[in-house]
């Protein structure tokens, strides 16, 4: 199972049981007052957490987007206008300047933890 650990993380927040995230799908969770979209990319055996807000039209929606890959880069497509973002880097993959925030995560004992730096 892939986990991502960064040094400056000060708080690991237990967010959700991974089995509550449907396969190859996303859900939205509220963590510390923020809307975070978490994905169970079962096909790749990977999990991701990104902000739920699509910056294009500022809509709280990304957890309802279809996930997939572009030449190997895992991505999510916003349901509104199909803007796609890398789940790894948060970069927009349609050549636009805006991007989304990604969160470090780790999976321990069936739970997903989201890392915060403050």
């Amino acid at each position, binding site marked *: 199972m892939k986990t991502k650990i960064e040094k400056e993380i000060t708080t690991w927040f237990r*967010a*959700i049981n991974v089995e*509550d*995230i*449907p*396969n*190859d*799908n996303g*859900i*939205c*969770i*509220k*963590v510390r007052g923020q*809307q975070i979209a*978490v994905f169970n*990319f079962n*096909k*790749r055996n990977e999990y991701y957490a990104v902000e739920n807000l699509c910056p294009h*039209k*500022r*809509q*709280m*929606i990304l957890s*309802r*987007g*279809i*996930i*997939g*890959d*572009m*030449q*190997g880069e*895992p*991505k999510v*497509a916003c*349901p*509104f206008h*199909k803007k*796609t973002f890398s789940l790894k880097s948060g970069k927009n993959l*349609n*050549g*636009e*300047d805006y991007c989304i925030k990604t969160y470090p995560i780790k999976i321990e004992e069936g739970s997903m933890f989201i890392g915060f730096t403050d």
Partner: protein
Amino acid sequence: METGKKSKTKKKNIVVIGNGMVSYKFCEKFVSKPKASSYNLIVLGEEPRPAYDRVHLSEYFNGMNPEKLTLGSLEWYAENDIQLYVGQLATHIDVTNKTVTTDKGRIFTYDKLIMATGSAPFVPAIDGVEKDGVFVYRTIEDLDLMLSYAKRAKKAAVIGGGLLGLEAAKAVKDLGLETHVVEFAPRLMPRQLDDAGARILKEKLEALGIWIHTDKNTTLIDGDQHVSKMIFTDDSTLDVDMIVISAGIVPRDELARKIGLETGPRGGIVVDEKMRSSNPDIYAIGEVALVNNMTYGLVGPGYDMAEVVVKQLLTGEETSFSGADLSTKLKLIGVDVASFGDAFCEQEGRSIVYEDRAKGIYKRINITEDGKYILGGILVGDAEDYNMLLQRVTNRIKLPENPEELILGPRGSDGNSGMGVMDLPDEALICTCENITKGTICDLIKAEKVNDISGIKACTKAGTGCGGCAPMLNDLYTETLKSMGKEVKKRICEHLELSRQELYHLVKINGLRTYNEVLDNFGQGDGCEICKPVVASVLASLWNDVIQKQCHIQDTNDRFLANIQRGGSYSVVPRVPGGEITPDKLIVIGELAKKYDLYCKITGGQRIDLFGAKVNDLPKIWEELVEAGFESGHAYGKALRTVKSCVGSTWCRYGVQDSVSFAIEVENRYKGLRSPHKLKSAVSGCTRECAEAQSKDFGIIATDKGWNLYVCGNGGTKPQHAVLLAADLDKETCILYIDRFLMFYIKTAEPLQRTAPWFNKLEGGIDYLRDVIIHDSLGICEELEKQMAHHVATYHCEWKEVVENEERRKPFKHYANSEEEDETLEFVDVRGQKIPAPWD
């Protein structure tokens, strides 16, 4: 003394005064060059925020927040190592010591100085112009001032009926004020339009509720402290409580004058074709630059100037600015306006004019005396031809034999006006925003550096500005591949190298039931938002399984069995077969709408759309609807939508058949049928055709002998009449043909291809279709009928499945870890109902 960052090595300083759109573009181009790192780039901006998109300023009033207009954020400047100082007005230049001083007392040394100071609104010397309630329209701060004042105003006038004035008028209208435009010249947009074009524009704007006053010269702005009245030279008056001046611009050259740079008599810093001012270390770009006695108030030429300077400084390339094409196309308050080339036919030539005042369309092209070339023209109300016409002007492409067809469309045959994108020369500009030529794009494709349209966009930025060239990019891509002898393989995406028809066939003969099976057997990678819904649609057409079982491959509408709307709420459309509904059912809908606070609207398909449902309310709403006997209307799916009907022979004195009963029968037969795109139908009870069946994917019109069946019609973007497949059918035969037709379409169409474009690509046209459907020339009719029979037998209401199943109800909530609703959903009131707060 500051030099910005303390540089370890001796980097040279480039200082840019001004932080508008051209300054931003200069920075963007500058940092993209490899040598950029050997300079310190310092930018001084007077405004309190970094560069923003002034062209779309009026969108600020549509509830857009200022960040959305931002071109380069503070972070962007920081990431690119550009030292940006906002809120710093450059007040002095010392050309001997090469320093710039700002109003905050900071001093910057420069090696090269770029003046990108732009311009200021021109304020005519009218008595009373200093009064409260008079505004200019240039910066976000100007807009904020207008916004706060507009709260106590009712009626506003914009002085100036040019491009900027009409933009300002849109802004004023968006503020909800009665809007007047006052123009000195006898017509609107005098620099772009002729009398007839301006007249059509005026009529269209007046129809939108904007008052236009031309030939008006304001002599006095009256009022005690606040503006109350405008008085004109002809002694007429106009009562207003707010005035916005947008009558032109003057270059901001005051600093240049102070230090003795050469300036023009009407303003502007005189520069040569390399944008060099009279001081060899000082350049000027954008609206402040005066090249060959011309200043340019458009961003396009400003961007070109930025490019010229960047190349000189960083690449040593010899480029120059040789003037710019002032052709423009824009949407003014929803009206298309374009003016290109020699719009007024000032050279030797003649004009061809098409005018339809009822429709509000005006088109004029100016052609050479010999009829060989187009010189320029004007389009109002419909500017769809702008790109191709402009290409003909800039590339001197020979005109077809009947040049009038360029604006009238060809008569008779259904061909096009004889010019495709491949006829353009390589130097033709395809994307005028980013200056990308046809040659550049074709070379990329030929060198196989890009694999699709988004690759072209990412590589060249073409198509990322106004987006107007997107159709040309598409054509260029397919046509170039074709010219390379490559079959333009219709593939669904990078994961499925199959056409939809191949996919359909493989899924069927291999009996595949899930997306993962399809991908494992015939695809690669992990899938994406393109192939997942396509496979979902094919699986649904073939097996008619419960959609929710594979919700990860459904678009959000299919995943939540409702239509997502602005803001993230959903709309609910119960099926109302044939548009017939009992009072009891109407009451149920009304009560539900009240209970869940839903906005109600009658749809074009004779049913009722309930908007604004929260995702967690959807199962509860549907529980009540199902209880009352309603079924899913499939408005969210690429599936059969409605079968409209007129009231027919039961009530109507003209009706010859019972169209309502037949419509209900047809709708109930095909409801839930998934297809490559949505399907619409209608049944009319007589030849008067009140149900508009000829605009539908399949339509039925009653005759005194039976029913006429029409297929492949379409409303929408490109309306197309349906064609008669068979006449005077009895009901059973009519249904049989529809069964075969629909299944044939589902089997062979491309993804998201409606029946009309599918039909247009069908070799052999209607004769071929008749052969297949009526004469069974392919020998597939039995199979097609069997498949439809399977669909009818396995129909289920998707919403019933959900409301009766606790597990399937579960995903209908906003937060997986909380019962809270989405607190960001915002609604405002309009005419007594709610609508979502406008998005950016």
